[in-house]
């Protein structure tokens, strides 16, 4: 009897999980939709648009992340060069190091590492900021003052991320290639000039723009998850911690899923 009940509970749990997941994705989409409306449609319908808040966010999200993004992608570029040299040396194809590093950084690691850094710096900050405002009734105060909390708090973040994620990714791509060149010059017989020439010859425009498309999507995911977790904060300080943690964990998981989906999509659309 009890076993039967437990077996029965499994499809119920799976069903509930599925519905909750779709509801969550729906919630993210609704936040993004409302933000898109107040950013791109609102100003034409006489609502005010304040670029200052988006600029402040862009500074925090993008400009202040340059140092850490540079450091990480520089080292990962160097690591990628070392690791690929390990295989390429045996094939006697050390001249391919530049191309291997460039393609893996541009197509995958640049956008992904940037996203991970931005999740850690900004996704968590979004959740903590909105969560704290929720706990201290500031979100309620916005509503009673006839402000739309989404327009006020979320839309500037989306706009900032939409612009800054591709910018950071381009910079990350560059720093990754520079990191690779350190090994190229010291360990693979390149000169700085010939390394960058080899990099240029190895990549096509497609490598860059697929990475940038992904970075924009990552930016949307990170903002939506961070803000949604912030708004779902209950009462109390522990709740802010909880929503910050879950913003980071959920963002990382969703970014990887989005990465997989779009990498597959790009592959299917044009495999060559």
């Amino acid at each position, binding site marked *: 009897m009890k076993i039967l009940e437990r077996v029965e509970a499994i499809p119920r749990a799976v069903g509930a999980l599925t519905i909750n997941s779709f509801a969550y994705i729906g919630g993210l989409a609704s936040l993004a939709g409302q933000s898109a409306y107040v950013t791109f449609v609102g100003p034409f319908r006489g609502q*005010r648009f304040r670029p200052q808040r988006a600029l402040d966010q862009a500074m925090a999200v993008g400009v202040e992340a340059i140092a850490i993004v540079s450091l990480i992608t520089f080292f990962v570029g160097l690591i990628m060069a070392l690791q690929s040299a390990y295989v390429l040396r045996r094939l006697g194809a050390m001249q391919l190091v530049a191309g291997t590093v460039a393609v893996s950084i541009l197509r995958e690691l640049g956008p992904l590492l940037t996203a991970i850094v931005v999740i850690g710096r900004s996704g968590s900050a979004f959740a903590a900021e909105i969560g704290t405002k929720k706990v*201290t*009734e*500031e979100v*309620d*105060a916005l*509503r*009673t*003052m*006839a*402000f*739309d909390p989404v327009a006020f708090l979320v839309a500037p973040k989306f706009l900032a991320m939409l612009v800054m994620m591709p910018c950071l990714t381009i910079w990350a791509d560059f720093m990754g290639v520079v990191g690779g060149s350190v090994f190229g010059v010291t360990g693979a017989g390149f000169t700085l000039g010939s390394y960058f020439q080899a990099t240029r010859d190895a990549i096509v425009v497609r490598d860059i723009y697929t990475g940038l498309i992904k970075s924009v999507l990552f930016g949307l995911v990170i903002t939506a998850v961070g803000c949604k977790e912030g708004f779902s904060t209950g009462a109390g300080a522990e709740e802010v911690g909880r929503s910050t943690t879950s913003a980071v964990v959920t963002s990382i998981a969703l970014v990887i899923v989005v990465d997989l989906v779009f990498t597959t999509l790009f592959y299917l659309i044009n495999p060559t």
Partner: protein
Amino acid sequence: MTDTGASEAAISVVNLRVSYGEREILHGITFDIPRGETVAILGGSGSGKSTLLRTLVGLEKPTSGEVWIGGVNTANLSERQMDAIRKRMGMSFQGSALFGSMTVGENVALPLREHTDLEDSTIEIMVRIKLGQVGLSAFEDFMPSELSGGMKKRAAVARALAMDPEILFFDEPSAGLDPIIAAGLDELILNLKKAYSLTMVVVTHELASAFLIADRMVYVDRGHIVALGTKEEFLASKHPRVRQFLDRVPEPEVTEELDYLQMLTGDRKNAKS
């Protein structure tokens, strides 16, 4: 329109029910708040008085019933339609809810900047007037974190006054303040009452404060209104819960042995059936 008469009642609540999920907090509440009067909503912790306030300002949606504010039933308005009404109301929150990233002056200026077309210089003057009214003239450039609890509450009142509201709501204005600062806030509310023809709704559990500032009392108990009227009527109330509240009698621990037994075993029974 109802015949409750929008002209005399600033707020009119008809058979209001509010639930959080499955749990109903307010079980059909009806009362009027006449224009220009100060009403204290009294009640113990968990009585539903804060929920009532949140519903009046549109932060919670009623499950049924009507909330008429200035002749409009706000129960079924969309968030954007509600905003038009909110611009005519001000609310001072229990924890002040000032925006921590802005100075006190910017906090007060925010509604003016966003909702009006006034020049910056005009807004600046208005901010100084509002801060002067609450006795914070010298604190325009302070951050909220640099203010004491009582000053934060005053700043929150200044922000609530920014748009020259017709109705002002206070959530526990004296909670967490020492008696002297709390008395100062009571006096501020009295001064506002004298200076403007404001309708004010004050949620509080401080009896002394309520008797000082209010024209009328509404006593909420477990989601029902059990007493309603002027101070004198309220004092004369025979309702046992009101008497208990006025005489500061603690809740008896166990009312009946059967109830106690029910409380101990209740969950199991529910799970079985």
